[in-house]
């Protein structure tokens, strides 16, 4: 399956805590407006690729206090009615795979609502490769097995542009779940 995604900015009004809600205004344009997604399945294995324009990649943030890393994640619902924009809710979890430009391995994420995100090292057989070329990132996750995706056949995507100080809920996201069948 190949798909062109128009991304939106995650609304700041929904963010947990009072600071982002009150101190930030929603940007007119998402930091990353468009992305291309490609999903292939081979038996139980998945290959998920996202590519997007990024003129100013940030791959190392270890030497200063104000820099944020480029990241991307694919998320799958853990139950049929898990809500995408809040990253699930109690009893209705979501699962995700996260790439950060400063890490070799991806991170596995589970959440039951904003603020509950747990990041862990990935299961065996979850890997990621990334390349930045001519102003564009291409990130490919290879996932040996992902039962939540297998069961619900839906994904959502999020892109954090480090140069725009994206992090946490300040991100560009797909406007809802999208089915992985064309």
């Amino acid at each position, binding site marked *: 399956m190949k798909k062109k995604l128009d991304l939106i900015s995650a609304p700041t009004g929904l963010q947990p*805590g009072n600071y*982002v809600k*009150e101190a930030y205004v929603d940007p007119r344009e998402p930091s990353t407006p468009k992305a291309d997604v490609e999903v292939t399945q081979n038996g139980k294995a998945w290959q998920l690729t996202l590519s997007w324009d990024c003129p100013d990649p940030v791959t190392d943030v270890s030497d200063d*206090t104000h820099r944020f890393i480029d990241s991307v994640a694919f998320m799958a619902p853990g139950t049929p009615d898990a809500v995408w924009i809040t990253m699930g809710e109690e009893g209705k979890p979501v699962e995700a795979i996260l790439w950060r430009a400063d890490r070799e391995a991806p991170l596995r994420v589970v959440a039951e609502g904003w603020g509950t995100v747990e990041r862990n090292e990935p299961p065996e057989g979850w890997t990621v490769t990334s390349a930045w070329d001519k102003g564009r990132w291409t990130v490919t996750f290879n996932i040996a097995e992902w039962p939540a995706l297998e069961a619900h056949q839906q994904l959502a995507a999020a892109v954090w542009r480090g140069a725009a100080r994206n992090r946490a809920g300040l991100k560009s996201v797909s406007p809802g779940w999208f089915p992985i069948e064309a």
Partner: protein
Amino acid sequence: MAREKYATNVKRQVAMVLDLNKCLGCQTCTIACKKMWNTDTGSGYAYWNNVETMPGKGYPANWQTTGGIDAEGKIKRGEIPTLDTGYGRAWTFDHQEVFASSGNEPSQKIWIQPKEKNVKHGANWDEDEGVGTYPEDNHYFYLPRICNHCEEPACLHACPRGAIVKNEENGIVMVNQDRCHGYRFCVEACPYKKVYFDPKRQVANKCIFCAPRVEEGVAPACARQCPGRLRYVGFMDDEDGPIWKLVKKWGVAVPLHPEYGIGPNVFYVPPMSPPQLDMHGVPLDEPRIPMAFLEQLFGPAVKDAMNILLEERERKKAGESSELMDLLIAYDWNENFKLDDGTREVFS
């Protein structure tokens, strides 16, 4: 939209008072804290306790101009200071080179100096610069700063991870680094700029008011090591303790930037200063440190605090007794600290 208020469930609040009339700017407090808690390589630049010269840019540079709340009580968007222009990178030195050069002619000696070139700021960058014209009105004073362990901590409410907690037993505000994902909304939101970020470990860190010591009834290292004996530590509600006496009973200790509206629990006895001189060297009625500047830092309550201090000082000068002056002089250092009833802090 006005800022939401938050209820806290803190049973007792620990607090500190610092008498700015006695600070020597020696930085013993800074080093006591740094060596005890904060030696990770990614935090080389970060001083949970710092002492800055006022008036001055402070540390991080211009911290008073970022964050806080506006006139309508709405939270302002803060900034994350950078290492180069905000905090200043930790300097490195080539001690070997200096040792090897000893014994040469003075002109050939290599003196100790930071390896870094084009340094733009540092933790004690504008030390002793101050403002004014000698001898008429030149002045400066030292302002030691730690986290204020606020009633409504801006950092705590800014964290989407719930990684910052205010301890119910003593009101100390701490970062749970296991939950921290390095988003730095806390760094942005704190108007005192007292949350730091370790870019190597990608987690926030801050003053813990020496919580493990406080739990044992022992004052924080910055207070205990202070040769100026200017720091007082205790619980806000302890009417036998130094905090209640200085803040509530005598009203001579006032918080830094009360207008930020988040209820700081560190208080300052404002600095008295000698008079300005006219062009003939005759003393004027105006103190060298202008009241307007102190009001900028400590709000309007500093005026009354100053008047009480001056009155009590006169009483003491006249040979009368003054509980306030005796406490501020720190005749008995044990009076400076009162945490656990059973603990005598200083043995004489």
